[in-house]
Every structure is written in structure tokens, then in C-alpha cells.
């Protein structure tokens, strides 16, 4: 069979067409079904070819007959792969398997974005150096941000709470005290590297943003212990 490189689908019009069809629940249900099985059959083939294995060679790795691999790669086959079979295939390819419910936006995206090169997945061993490199970079960034803030962990925790409060706009003259539940003593002084008691929500916003940028931490959880109008 000769190679046929057809021009890419206009994904916008294709998605619009599929969306229009999906207003019919019967079509919608069938598209979900076909997306799963046509998608997975095609990806098994892509992964096998990515590893330059024949069906027989991959069958030996997966401990399945060549005929069964042929069926697994055929979206028209009457026998559909079970989750157990897919896990076995994932193990033979040494890749992960992700089974989850998704919104229709994802179904439509996956229906129209079918470029086979995007279906390729490296094996764990091939992916490992990149995984380690990525994690090393994230950890290094995190350490750098912590040291840049010049704060101890408790202070950072307090600052997180400050940033999270107040959730709603307050008057400029309001003063707040906040308590971080994990501390035995309420943190109410202004002697910290970052101000704990605020009089101006706009100031708080600026400080918070600055802290967020420097520490890279997500802030949440606070409890009001006293609220007083200046």
C-alpha cells in the first residue's frame, strides 16, 4: 500500500460538524465509543511501528499471538480489547495507560486531532532521563524561590495565609488580624519580614503578588480571629 499524505483536516470546521452531530444523543454515544476503540487501535499500531516491531515480534513481547495483535489494531474487528488486555499491551510497550471520564470538549479534540506522530509514546526507559531532568529543574526552581524570599517555613506559611485573606474587597482603613491554625500563637504582629497586619487591601495585593512571584507557592487557608475597623 503506497503512502498517502492527505492534507490536514480543517479542525475547526470538523469540530463544528461533530458538535452539530453530537446534539443527537445516539451519535454522541457512538462517537465516544468510536473515539475509544478507533483511537486505541490506531495508537497500538503507532506504538508498535514506533518501536519498529512486526506484529509477530510485538506479539512475543506481549505474549499474544500475531493474529490477536492484528485484531487489536483493527478498528473494524468485532472483538474489542478489554481493560485487562490494554493493561497488558501497556506493559509490553512499557508505557502508562490513562482511563478516565472526560468532557465532550476532549472527545471532540481527540476526534479531530488525529496526527499519528502525536500518538507516539516513549517507553519508561526512554522517558526516564527527561523525567529526571524535568523534576530536577522543578526542585531547583523551588529551592531557589525559597531562598530568594529569605523566609523560614513558618513565615512562609503565615504569608500564605495573609495572601489568602481577605477574599472580598475591604475598606482601605480596615485592619485585620489573621491566625494560621497550625501555629500555637496567633500571628498578629508586624515584625515579620512581611507585614501581617494590613490596612490597605491594595497594598496586600501588591505584596502578595510579589511574594507569589518569588516563592512560587500556592496560598490558602486562613482564619479570622479578630476584625476591627480603624
Amino acid at each position: 500500500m503506497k503512502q498517502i499524505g492527505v492534507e490536514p483536516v480543517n479542525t475547526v470546521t470538523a469540530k463544528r460538524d461533530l458538535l452539530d452531530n453530537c446534539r443527537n444523543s445516539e451519535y454522541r454515544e457512538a462517537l465516544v465509543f468510536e473515539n475509544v476503540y478507533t483511537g486505541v487501535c490506531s495508537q497500538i499500531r503507532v506504538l508498535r511501528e514506533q518501536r519498529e516491531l512486526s506484529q509477530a515480534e510485538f506479539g512475543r513481547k506481549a505474549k499474544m499471538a500475531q493474529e490477536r495483535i492484528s485484531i487489536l489494531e483493527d478498528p473494524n474487528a468485532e472483538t474489542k480489547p478489554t481493560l485487562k488486555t490494554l493493561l497488558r499491551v501497556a506493559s509490553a510497550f512499557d508505557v502508562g495507560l490513562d482511563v478516565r471520564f472526560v468532557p465532550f470538549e476532549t472527545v471532540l479534540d481527540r476526534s479531530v486531532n488525529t496526527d499519528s506522530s502525536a500518538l507516539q509514546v516513549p517507553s519508561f526507559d526512554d522517558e526516564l532521563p527527561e523525567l529526571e531532568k524535568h523534576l530536577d529543574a522543578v526542585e531547583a526552581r523551588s529551592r531557589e524561590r525559597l531562598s530568594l524570599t529569605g523566609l523560614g517555613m513558618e513565615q512562609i506559611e503565615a504569608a500564605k495565609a495573609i495572601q489568602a485573606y481577605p477574599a472580598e474587597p475591604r475598606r482601605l482603613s480596615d485592619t485585620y488580624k489573621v491566625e494560621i491554625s497550625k501555629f500555637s500563637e496567633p500571628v498578629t504582629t508586624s515584625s515579620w519580614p512581611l507585614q501581617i497586619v494590613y490596612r490597605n487591601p491594595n497594598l496586600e495585593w501588591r505584596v502578595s503578588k510579589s511574594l507569589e512571584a518569588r516563592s512560587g507557592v500556592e496560598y490558602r487557608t486562613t482564619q479570622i480571629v479578630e476584625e476591627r475597623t480603624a
Partner: protein
Amino acid sequence: MDYLDERGTNPIQDWLSDVRQVPVKAKAKIDRILLQLAGTRLWVRPLASNLDDYPGIVEIRVRWMNTQYRILGFRGPDERQFTILFPALEQGDEFQPLGAPGIARTRMQIVEADWSRACEHRYG
């Protein structure tokens, strides 16, 4: 792309939107397989194959329930396009209608001679 007849109507869309010929679920499967092929560089069996006796004609096979659709088309008019020419079925290992490959070949020649006899395929 879809073949257009001499009146400018689209027989491929007419066929796909006729639920007596293509039930809704079968259409979903055809749509999905066409989209899958559009993202695939190498068209191979079991989804696609050349017709040995009809050079240039490619068939796309879609099975739904007990019906085997054999959608005939060709690579063109532009070399990166694929045009659906004739939607056939299979009955007892033969094309239904029997003359489907011949019709597809005639239509291919028409489109090659006049590119306006093909339009963008829509999935709607």
C-alpha cells in the same frame, strides 16, 4: 474532498445523511475513521487498500454491525488531498453495486479533468 455531480449536488453527503443507508451510529464510525486516516501518513490495511484492477482507486473499509462499507476514493485532485468518489457496500465478498469500482474510476477521471467537481468533505 467529496465528488460533486454535474448538477453540483454532493452524492457523498446525500448518502451519509440518509439514515436508511447509513444509520447514525454507522455515520459516527465512518466520520471517526475518516478523521483517523486524515492524521495517518501511511494508509494500510485493514482500514485502507488499493484496488488492484482499478489503478488509483483506494477503498476505505468501515464495518458496522453486519454491514461492510467500502468507501471508494482516490488521491487527488491535489496530491495532498483525498476525494471520496463512491460509497459502496460489500455483499458476499463482492461490491454492492457490482459496478462500484467502475463508477469510482469514471468519477476520478471527471475530478482530475475538472477540480470544481470536488468540494471539501464535511462531517455534519
